[in-house]
């Protein structure tokens, strides 16, 4: 742990300033998620040289480039596969995967479930904005019911994926969800996820303001961010402040945690026992 954790968090120490302003649309929630991630990294005292960011394709995949670390922008849906190789070859690196709902749950779904099952010490940050933004706004596995997208002209009729349940079912050691509106909480969750020795799956409720928001008349950027809570808050009406929010009837915070053996450790133990024989 470096001393940096004791100093104030200055986001500019962690970004490639020469690339700013970044390429995301005005109001895109991914920027807020990026802040929370960098903040968590700062607070954990992780050195930038020891940090490896592996991302996939889509808007989420592009944010890795803005981080002043070892960044790998890989292929669509496959960041977890790349990260698995990287982490196994380099256990000394902190490997964090940034992916999106389409990248992670659709094209990369198989990699997700097996990454969860293996429980290798990787943190997977899935930025869920319910849409394929980069390609112009097609329906994704998490698009809410009845929402309009360029491929659901009459509104979405497909059921929605609960990524956290999936991750838990597949065996991830740590599962959590938070929204960008709650930046400090999101930071804390990411911090816990990274600190967890095993695979941590974190779903970040983010917003695609320009494409999804417009198409569905969800208001301007601020309204969209706010509505994370509006929808989320309904079940907590009349409850006191520290009650857990139940966004759209899904919970936020740490949803699941267990200490089953981490993959690389289990591998090494098996090898050691074989060597003894």
């Amino acid at each position, binding site marked *: 742990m470096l001393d940096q954790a004791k100093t104030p968090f200055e986001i500019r120490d962690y970004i490639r300033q020469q690339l700013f302003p970044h390429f995301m649309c005005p109001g895109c929630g991914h920027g807020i998620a990026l802040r929370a991630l960098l903040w968590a990294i700062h607070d954990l005292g992780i050195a930038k040289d020891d940090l490896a960011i592996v991302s996939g394709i889509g808007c989420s995949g592009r944010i890795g480039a803005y981080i002043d670390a070892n960044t790998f922008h890989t292929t669509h849906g496959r960041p977890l596969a790349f990260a698995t190789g990287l982490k196994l070859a380099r256990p000394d690196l902190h490997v964090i995967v940034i992916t999106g709902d389409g990248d992670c749950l659709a094209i990369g779904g198989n990699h997700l479930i097996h990454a969860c099952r293996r429980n290798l010490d990787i943190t997977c940050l899935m930025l869920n904005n319910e849409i394929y933004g980069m390609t112009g706004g097609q329906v994704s596995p998490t698009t809410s019911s009845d929402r309009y997208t360029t491929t659901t002209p009459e509104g979405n009729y497909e059921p929605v994926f609960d990524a956290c349940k999936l991750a838990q079912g597949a065996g991830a050691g740590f599962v959590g969800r938070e929204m960008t509106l709650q930046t400090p909480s999101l930071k804390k969750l990411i911090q816990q996820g990274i600190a967890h020795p095993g695979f941590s799956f974190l779903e970040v409720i983010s917003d695609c303001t320009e494409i999804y928001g417009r198409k569905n008349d969800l208001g301007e*950027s601020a309204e969209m961010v706010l509505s994370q809570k509006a929808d989320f808050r309904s079940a907590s009406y009349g409850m006191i402040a520290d009650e857990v929010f139940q966004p759209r009837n899904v919970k936020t915070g740490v949803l699941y945690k267990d200490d089953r053996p981490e993959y690389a450790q289990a591998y090494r133990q098996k090898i050691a026992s074989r060597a003894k024989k």
Partner: protein
Amino acid sequence: MTTAVKPVKAPNTPPLTIPRPHNVLIVGVGGQGVIMISKVLATLCQEQGFEVKQSEVHGMAKRGGAVFSHVRFGEIVHSPTIPEGEADVLLALEWAEGMRWMPYLRQQSGTFIADTQRIVPPFACRNRTRGARTGYVGETIQTVMEQVENSFALDAMGIAKQLGVVKAANTVLLGALSTALDFPTEAWKSVISKFVPPQTTKVNLLAFDAGREWALGFDRESELRNIKDTRSLHQESTVEAGADYSRVEITEEWCKGCDICVKFCPERCLIMNEKLIVEMAEPELCTGCRMCEWLCPDFAITVHTPNHVPL
């Protein structure tokens, strides 16, 4: 004064016969039941033969924002809103909201009834940095009770919980409110019965009684002596008196004009200029809460506070 009211420690109830309108201000945050309570009261007043005006503001009702309702009744009522300093009763469903509306309470004779529950909505809350200046009201129950003669701070939720129905907290408050207004208990109860779901009528009436009894038995002096709840979300400011204001640094080239910071700033310090770039308009209002910094997707805002306390 009805016979049901024990004269022991009845609140200062103005006689209903006076010609000036009677003013009750009910405040809280979205979703708490401010509107329901004011509807009950308005209906009651009307049934009791008064002219009633009820006006409410609940623009942010769904979002944990502030909600308030003015209920005025009397022989003749013209204006629907209560001027500052003229509320006979201020009923607060949330502590900070109660504090915010305190100037509306009639000096000396006004009655203040507040639920001690606290809800810290992102907007009311200023600085969530622990140990730093907080935007949440600093007044503790103690200070309020010392300053306002007719003040009642009750844990309505706690009382309702004891009855096994958390949702009846508002009826507990109605019970307490009933002691400040000279209407027959039965009239209260009959109106309440009309508003609550039929299967919950019984518990709600029990809750009403409980609230009423609590208020009647309230001994301010001994309460003040035994006060345990000195909790306050306000902690001593780590900012020295006279320290500089928080300074908000805006990197214009990075700002994309998404308006998030402008709309989220609890103090409305920021504005969007004609170039669609954000600008600090009211630096002295800024509390350094960092809301704008946290939510700016483009890292265009950095808030410099005199004392940085990491979360």
